[in-house]
C-alpha cells in the first residue's frame, strides 16, 4: 500500500517536471536550428550563437539587466535588513501601518506599480532611465528581503544579543558578531529572490525605462511581438547553462564546507 502511494508521487513529480521543462527544451532545441522560423527542424547550426555575440544591443540589454538586478538588490538588502532588525525593536504607533506599506509593492499587481511609478516619476521630473529603473526595482525588492529577514528574526533569541551587550560589546559589535551571522542566510535568500524578480521583470520596467535604455526582458518582449530571432533562444540556452553550472558549483561548495565543518567539530572535540 505504502509502496504504491510512493510511486504515484514519483510519477506525479516526474510528469509535472517534464511538462515544466517542455517549453524550455523547445527553446534550447530551436537555438540550434538552421532556420529563422521555429516551425520545423532544418539542421544543426551554431550560427545564432555567433550572431548573438556580435549583437551589441542584446548584450548591452543583458548587461543592463544584471547591473540593475545587482544594484536594486544591494539597496534592498541594506534597507530591508536594517528595517527588519529595527522594526523588531521599535514600538512606534506607526509601525503596523509602515510594515504594511513597505510590503505594498508585492501586494499589488505589477501593472499598478508600473503605472503609479511612471506618473509619479514624471511628476518629480526624474530623468527616465537608470534612476527610475533602480528606484522602481528597489521598491519591489525591499519587501522580499524584509519579509525573509523578519521571518528569520522571529526564530532568533533576542537575549543572545542582549547578553553580548551586557558583556560590554558595543551595539555595532553585537550586531556584526551575533545578529548578522544569524540572519545572513535570510538576507542571502531575500537577495537571490529579489535579483531573480528584478532580472525577470517586464511590466514595471516597460513603464519606467528611458529612451536609450533596454533590459533583457524588455528586449525579449519587443521581439516576441515583432518576431523572435533564434539569437534569443541561444541567449536563453547560455543563461540556462550558467544557472545549472552555478547551482552545481554552489552545491559542491556547500558539501565541501559541510565536510570541513564536520572535521572542525571533530578537531575541537579531540
Amino acid at each position: 500500500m505504502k509502496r504504491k502511494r510512493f510511486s504515484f508521487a514519483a510519477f506525479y513529480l516526474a510528469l509535472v517536471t517534464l511538462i515544466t521543462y517542455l517549453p524550455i527544451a523547445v527553446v534550447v532545441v530551436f537555438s540550434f536550428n538552421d532556420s529563422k522560423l521555429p516551425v520545423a527542424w532544418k539542421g544543426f547550426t551554431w550560427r545564432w550563437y555567433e550572431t548573438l555575440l556580435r549583437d551589441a544591443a542584446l548584450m548591452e540589454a543583458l548587461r543592463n539587466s544584471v547591473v540593475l538586478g545587482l544594484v536594486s538588490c544591494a539597496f534592498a538588502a541594506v534597507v530591508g535588513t536594517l528595517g527588519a532588525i529595527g522594526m523588531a525593536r521599535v514600538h512606534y504607533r506607526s509601525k503596523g501601518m509602515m510594515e504594511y506599506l513597505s510590503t505594498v509593492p508585492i501586494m499589488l499587481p505589477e501593472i499598478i506599480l508600473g503605472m503609479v511609478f511612471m506618473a509619479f516619476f514624471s511628476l518629480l521630473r526624474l530623468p527616465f532611465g537608470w534612476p527610475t529603473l533602480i528606484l522602481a526595482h528597489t521598491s519591489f525588492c525591499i519587501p522580499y528581503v524584509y519579509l525573509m529577514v523578519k521571518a528569520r528574526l522571529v526564530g532568533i533569541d533576542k537575549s543572545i544579543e542582549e547578553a553580548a551587550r551586557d558583556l560590554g560589546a558595543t551595539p555595532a559589535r553585537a550586531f556584526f558578531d551575533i545578529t548578522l551571522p544569524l540572519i545572513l542566510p535570510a538576507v542571502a535568500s531575500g537577495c537571490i529572490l529579489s535579483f531573480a524578480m528584478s532580472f525577470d521583470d517586464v511590466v514595471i520596467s516597460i513603464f519606467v525605462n528611458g529612451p536609450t535604455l533596454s533590459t533583457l526582458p524588455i528586449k525579449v518582449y519587443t521581439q516576441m511581438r515583432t518576431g523572435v530571432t533564434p539569437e534569443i533562444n541561444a541567449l536563453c540556452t547560455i543563461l540556462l547553462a550558467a544557472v545549472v553550472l552555478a547551482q552545481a558549483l554552489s552545491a559542491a561548495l556547500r558539501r565541501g564546507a559541510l565536510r570541513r565543518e564536520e572535521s572542525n567539530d571533530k578537531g575541537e572535540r579531540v
Partner: protein
Amino acid sequence: MKPRQRRERWWLCVAPLYLFTLLFVLGPVLYMIAVSFAQNTAGTGFRWAFTLENFAKMRDGVYLNCFRESLRLALSTTLLNVLIGYPFGYFMGRLGARGKRLMLFLVMVPFWTSSLIRLYGWLIILQAKGLLNNVLLALGLIREPLKILYTYPAVLTGMVYGLLPFMILAVYTSVEKMDWTLVEAARDLGATPARAFLTITLRLTLPGLMSGVILTFVPSMGLFFIADLLGGNKIVLVGSLIQDQMTRGGNQPFAAALALVLAVMTTLLLALYRRATHMSELEGML
C-alpha cells in the same frame, strides 16, 4: 548603558525603510489616488478639477467586462495552481534529502530563465504547425491542426505555468518543516489517512498554501502580457486597459481610476482570504 538609551538608537535602523516607503510607496500611491479624481483634457495632460467621471465611466459594460475577465482569469489561475502545485509541493516535501535537493534544483532552474522565453516556448509548442499539433497529427488523433493558440485555454496554460513555481515553493517550505510525529500520533489513535491529512497536514501547511495563493493571485490580477501574447490580443484584461489608457489613450486619470479599483479589489479579496484562513503573515517563500 541604560536599557532605555539602547532602544532609542533603533530609529536609525528603520529610518531608511521609513523614508523610502513614505517617499516611493506612499507618495506614488497617494498621487495615483489624487489623479484618479482629476479631469482628463484633450491630448495627454489632465486638469486638477475634482470629478467622479473616471469612476462613472467604468460602469460601461465594456469596462465592467474587463474586470470580470481579469477576475475570472486570476481565480482560475490560482485554483489550478493550488490543484497542481499543492500535491507537487507536498510530495516534494516527503522525499528524502537527496530527492529534495534534486527537485528543488529542478524547480529553481526555470525560475531563473526568463519567464518570457518560457512563454515563447509555449508559443512554439501550441502554434498551428507546432509541436503539439504535429504529434497529434502523427498519432492520427486529429486530422486538422487544432486551433489552440490565441484561445482562452492557451492563456490559462501560460498563466498557470508562469506562476506555478511560487505555489510549489511556498507549499514545499511549509511541508518541509512540518512535524510529522503529529500525523503519526493521529494515525496511531485510529484516524484514517484522509482524516489525518485533513485535520493535521492541511492545517499545518495552510500558511504555505496561503502564501502560495497570494503569490499567484496578486500577480495574476495584473499579468496582461501573457493574455496579449498567447491570446492574440483578444482577451482584454484590466492590465491591458490600464496600459492602453496610460500610453496609447493618453488618459492618465482614467488609468489611475482603473488602477485604484483594481488595487482595492485585490486588497479586499486578500483581506477576505486572510480572514477566512486566520492568517496574517506571508511566510515560506523560498
